């Protein structure tokens, strides 16, 4: 079973990465010449610099906010977490669009000065920082909620709440902090739509332009993807070194039953700061709703939206189901340290931290052939792409819950005569159902929000909603584009609500 799951992952994720090598030998030196000029390297430095800045900003705010949400007496912290987290599940492009309708020249609060600030590096940083800070907040919170209560209680006997937070909680969450830094960096460097929309040239845009834009030159796109390869290997190295199997407790939702750490005199200030951030995150979504309603975009929506929502839902649901199945097998194997599982876990992480243009270009190289058109020209290619990029979500969600589940349950099933498949289906799956559902839901939402991977290879006429939104933005009526963004938000909210209901039912 592990071999079968591993084969699927290798086909989906490793083959595209390896194919870059063969493609480069085919395209030859002419394509590589694109790297001799200074421009690609300027863009490369800009992209890595921007990613580093966004990562630093997300850590500075996300880590303390994560501690506050998980372990302090901040009022309404559960609701605050939801508000703050929700934008993470949306394509950042939707948020950029919202900020444009607020601070763009024609926006609700827009002036020349606000528009100039928004359309530039500061605007890109602002949008991506707000979009990705919840990664840090949530991973730190989940990690602290999964922490053994006795460790914290022992510290509280001898230390002040601030000392407990800084000397016990933060170090205990250090693998989650490291992972969040890697994830934010990887998401930022893959981001294509926000910089393009806000008129900032970045490296992924240069790759994208050579695959579908006016600079069409696929050989050069392969060459341009090269500098990103060492970067993704570096990210994988950091993940192995500082995170490894101590990964995020996605489904380790143990609740907030312990006594929270009192904030004391800092409570009003912390409350104001945290809630301000939560509400600011939602501002662009409210503005989009206003813009869509006022301009009649919502009424026009059915004419413009086409099959895009169904494409998103269908491809996302199928991919999430494949990811959850792979996650069950690979995540269980990783948690139980089965032979080969570490390598497969590393491969799934590599595919996630690899900047989307590399993976996208690799998928095109593998599947855009005359005899694979059944895959490449259909929704299957979206499923393959999502599985390649997001399998790690399912793997880590399952492995984090399996790690918390006693090995004796499985051993007693083996002693009772159950073979591996039966143990997996009758013991591991039911006992870790929340992790599997949590992994499925997260994977589904990640597929729904994906733009940067899908935009490179979506089949003609079958674009997902994110791509539809991105392509219509350039020449569609603004209110309709805002309505499409509202549709994306609604779709994501509905999927999340149903998923949370399913998680609650599975907890009974």
């Amino acid at each position, binding site marked *: 079973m592990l071999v079968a799951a591993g084969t699927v992952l290798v086909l989906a994720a490793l083959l595209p990465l390896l194919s870059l090598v063969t493609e480069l030998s085919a395209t030859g030196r002419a394509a590589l010449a694109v790297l001799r000029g200074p421009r690609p390297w300027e863009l490369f430095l800009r992209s890595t610099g921007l990613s580093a800045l966004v990562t630093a900003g997300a850590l500075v705010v996300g880590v303390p906010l994560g501690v506050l949400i998980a372990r302090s007496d901040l009022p309404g912290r559960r609701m605050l977490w939801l508000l703050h987290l929700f934008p993470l599940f949306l394509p950042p492009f939707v948020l950029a669009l919202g900020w444009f309708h607020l601070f763009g020249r024609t926006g609700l609060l827009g002036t020349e000065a606000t528009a100039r600030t928004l359309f530039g590096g500061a605007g890109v940083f602002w949008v991506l920082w707000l979009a990705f800070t919840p990664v840090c907040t949530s991973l730190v919170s989940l990690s602290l909620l999964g922490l053994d209560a006795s460790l914290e209680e022992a510290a509280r006997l001898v230390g002040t709440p601030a000392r407990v937070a800084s000397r016990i909680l933060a170090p205990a969450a250090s693998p989650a902090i490291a992972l969040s830094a890697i994830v934010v960096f990887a998401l930022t460097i893959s981001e294509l739509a926000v910089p393009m929309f806000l008129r900032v040239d970045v490296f992924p845009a240069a790759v994208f332009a050579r695959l579908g834009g006016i600079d069409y030159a696929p050989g050069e796109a392969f060459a341009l993807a090269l500098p990103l390869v060492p970067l993704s290997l570096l990210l994988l190295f950091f993940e192995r070194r500082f995170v490894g199997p101590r990964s995020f407790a996605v489904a380790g939702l143990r609740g907030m039953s312990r006594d929270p750490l009192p904030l004391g005199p800092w409570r009003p200030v912390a409350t104001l700061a945290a809630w301000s951030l939560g509400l600011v995150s939602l501002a662009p979504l409210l503005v989009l709703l206003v813009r869509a309603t006022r301009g009649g975009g919502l009424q026009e929506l059915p004419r413009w939206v086409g099959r895009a929502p169904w494409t998103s839902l269908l491809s996302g649901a199928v991919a999430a189901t494949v990811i959850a199945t792979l996650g069950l097998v690979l995540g269980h194997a990783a948690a139980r340290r089965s032979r080969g599982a570490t390598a497969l876990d590393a491969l799934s992480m590599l595919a996630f931290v690899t900047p989307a243009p590399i993976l996208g270009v690799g998928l095109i190289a593998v599947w855009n052939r005359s005899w694979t058109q059944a895959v490449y020209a259909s929704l299957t290619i979206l499923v393959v792409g999502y599985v390649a990029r997001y399998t790690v979500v399912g793997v880590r969600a399952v492995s984090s819950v399996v790690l918390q589940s006693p090995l004796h349950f499985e051993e*007693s099933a083996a002693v009772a*005569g159950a073979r591996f498949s039966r143990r997996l289906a009758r*013991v591991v799956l039911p006992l870790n159902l929340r992790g599997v559902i949590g992994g499925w839901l997260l994977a589904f939402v990640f597929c729904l929000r994906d733009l940067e991977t899908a935009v490179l290879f979506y089949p003609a006429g079958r674009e997902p909603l994110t791509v539809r939104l991105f392509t219509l933005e350039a020449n569609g009526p603004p209110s309709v584009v805002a309505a499409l963004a509202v549709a994306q938000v609604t779709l994501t909210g509905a999927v999340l609500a149903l998923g949370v209901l399913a998680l609650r039912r599975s907890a009974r």
Partner: protein
Amino acid sequence: MTAAIALEHVSLSFGAGPVLDDLSLEVEPGELLALLGPSGSGKTSVLRLVLGFLAPATGAVRLNGETVTLDGRIIRPPEERGVGMVFQDLALWPHLTVAGNLEFGLASRGLPRSDRSGRIRDMLSRVGLEARARRYPGELSGGERQRVAIARALVLEPRAVLLDEPLSNLDAPLRRELMVLLFQLLKERRVPGLYVTHDIREGASLGDRIAVLESGRIVQEGSLDRLRTAPATAFVRGVMEDLP
């Protein structure tokens, strides 16, 4: 006579030090051997070797004469060994009812549904839990859970049963009651057993014979009298002095 369980010159190490060092041990058919030893002596590792969850670097494990593990190679996986086990933490599957916990192994071994329900009913009635068949482990008392774990191990009619300090978390009266039940069940079915404990009283009450494990080696084995009259090590002397 062929031993029901035999470990022959078994050596096992984790990281730096050896866990088991050239250990040999036999449990005869129908015999209940108490394996006594301090914490960290390697008792649980012995059980995991017999079950097939661990393979020794060298040595062999045989069940009724059949070699199931040899020199680091697991020849028969755990699910094919036909050995029952009562875990220290019981490891009752929380998502299955009492009957479901017993039924799981029977179904895994391909028993027809009609045979399964009969065997489950008989076993539950023998341990006094017939009325609890549809309850979940979380709805039972500590003693009832213990009975389910014992019933789950025995309903499979195993060729041997391993018990890893299954009574260690119970109060004294309940422990005594369950020791009697366990002893009766094993003897009436003539199932050989290996009972791991660090409590000499439990070992002496249940075991036909006692083997003492220290630092990965069997330092003494025999009857309680023999251990009492000629203790081989300071540890054995110490535990004997604890006995009334």
